[in-house]
């Protein structure tokens, strides 16, 4: 599929036309933070960000979502029957998503969309959503995407990839879905050879600028039980305050909790993000909690992402190197240090 191009001056118009037939979620800056929001005008879009505070995962997996309603009125024949709440399936575009976050959706698919179990809410939203990515010309100091199977211009999970080439945006077409979108918008101008060279140079310089590298080869080799019983967890877990920041900003964390909220016989069944960092996460109905201690919970998070997940799916670690947890952890627990400890572990 041929690379297209639009002039920077045409970007606002491009976004306007995207909005004609889609809900467009784009990076919007509010004071000192940029996050994905549904936009109504093109001028809301701010592409001068490094990456958003929260990942765009809430667009496909909302933090809180009402799934069903029900009534407990025993006199009614509808009593106790769950009625699915209609969800909005108007086509969506996530505009300006970084390659790391796009790859994260692929990793989440491994959980939500498998031959044996499919989450219909997840699957429907994925189907109606087109991912229009933005390549990273200047990765952050905390980005380590290249160590974990992604990169500043990686295309996995994207439908289109925009690359900022100064006065023009080169649009790499990755999927049929992306091509279809461009066709709809009538974007036909092809990127010139010269422009493609500019892009190549950008990719090269961007890759060179990634200083943060983590080792991953050892993770596959070490035995899971040996890693589980390692001494280093004591030191890793000490500063952790068991809040949910890392899990909530992470694009690959997927855990959720289903809760019923009932008032005077009328009930809603909702799904909320949950966090393995919370004490309640593994609390059994019996009152027993297999991970009642902080060390157990901290260990679990890293073992899941860096060991159990790659062992199970053979698709690499459940981390895309976006660096958000490194930037946002209130006590500076650094997953890159844990990569090192786990990778270099000797029994």
């Amino acid at each position, binding site marked *: 599929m041929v690379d297209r191009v639009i002039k920077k001056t045409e970007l606002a118009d491009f976004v306007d036309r995207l909005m004609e037939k889609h809900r467009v979620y784009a990076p919007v800056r509010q*004071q*000192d*933070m940029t996050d994905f929001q549904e936009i109504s005008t093109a001028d809301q879009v701010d592409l*001068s960000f*490094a990456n958003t*505070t*929260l990942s765009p995962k809430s667009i496909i997996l909302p*933090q*809180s979502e009402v799934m069903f309603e029900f009534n407990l009125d025993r006199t009614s024949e509808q009593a106790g029957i769950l009625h699915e709440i209609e969800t909005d399936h108007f086509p969506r575009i996530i505009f300006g998503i970084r390659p790391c976050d796009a790859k994260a959706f692929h990793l989440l698919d491994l959980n939500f969309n498998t031959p044996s179990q499919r989450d219909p809410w997840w699957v429907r939203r994925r189907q109606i959503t087109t991912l229009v990515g933005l390549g990273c010309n*200047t990765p*952050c*100091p*905390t980005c380590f995407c290249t160590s974990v199977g992604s990169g500043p211009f990686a295309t996995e999970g994207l439908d289109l990839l925009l690359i900022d080439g100064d006065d023009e945006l080169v649009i790499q077409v990755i999927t049929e879905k992306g091509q279809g979108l461009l066709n709809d918008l009538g974007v036909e101008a092809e990127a010139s050879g010269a422009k493609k060279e500019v892009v190549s140079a950008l990719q090269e310089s961007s890759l060179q600028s990634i200083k943060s590298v983590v080792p991953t080869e050892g993770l596959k080799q070490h035995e899971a039980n040996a890693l589980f019983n390692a001494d280093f967890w004591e030191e890793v877990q*000490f*500063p952790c*305050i*068991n*809040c*949910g*920041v890392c899990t*909530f*900003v992470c694009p690959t964390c997927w855990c959720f*909790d289903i*809760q019923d*909220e009932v008032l005077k016989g009328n009930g809603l069944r*909702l799904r*909320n993000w949950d*966090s393995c960092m*919370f*004490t*309640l996460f593994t609390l059994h109905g019996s009152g027993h909690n297999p991970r009642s201690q902080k060390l157990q919970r901290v260990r679990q998070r890293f073992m899941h992402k860096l060991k159990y997940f790659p062992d199970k799916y053979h698709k690499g670690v459940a981390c895309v190197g976006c660096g958000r947890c*490194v*930037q*946002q952890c*209130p*006590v*500076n*627990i*650094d997953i*890159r*240090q844990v990569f090192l400890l786990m990778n270099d572990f000797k029994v």
Partner: protein
Amino acid sequence: MESLKEKMMHTTLLLLTERKVDVVLGFQRGTVPLMSQPILIRHPEGTDQLHWDSFCSTNLANFLPQRKERIAIFAKGCDSRNIVLQILENQIKREQLYIIGVPCQGMLDRRKVQAELNGRQLLGVRETSGHLHLVGEGFMDSLERSSYMQENCAICTHRNAVIYDELLAEPVSEQEGVDRYEDVKAIEAMTAKERWSYFEKLLAPCIRCYACRNSCPMCYCPVCFVDESMPQWLGKSIDPNDTKTFHFLRAYHLAGRCTDCGNCEQACPMSIKVRQLTKKLEKDIIELYDYEAGLSLDQRPPLDTYRPDDPQEFIG
């Protein structure tokens, strides 16, 4: 700052070598600029890891409740007041602690510094008295320290430890003529409708990560009210009313106990100014009970004790 760090190392080495304590609670250098990581040192060899700068604002008292060892802890003014309260509330015993008072002239707010960067990448910082020197990818900058202080530090009136076994350095002078409640009074002046709107806007970005709660040294309940289920106190979704309930109720649980250490605002990933709630209650407690949290082991927090002359106008 360098000399404070060296003193910390010296004291730690002594305490651990002479086995005066089992562990020392301090900080190590962060893996990213503008951050530091709390550390527990058990052996004299670990002393080298210690660090101290203007980004060591995490309240180490948060790590004390229910610990059983003999612990040395570096405590700024606010931290030491939380230690007083934790002792009064039976979360830690005075005999277990060797408190090393660290005089503090205010910690710096990493987000205020980051806002200055405007997309430029920071490689490291250096501090000299009064200035913060930024070294970055292709740039160097010098900032005047006083403009980048954490909000709570800017109005701090207890910079020196109120309880200690050893002082790391000479006490610093306390700030005078500080109006701690300028922002609170502005909200008090609003109509009920304006206030509701103000709080709605304030708490709208909340993602219920509970970083504020978990970073707070006074939030140590084995089961937080948010996590109660029989009965359930409030919903766990990001419903705005449940979110407001969480924040308002947590603030009330801190009335007479919050020392305004600012950890909550520093921990919040959404930069929510949650101290707007706790400061109002701090003001109320001073006005009603003439009490400032954690200044002395001889004073119990007013809401956990009864005096016949307690003010009662707010009781129906």
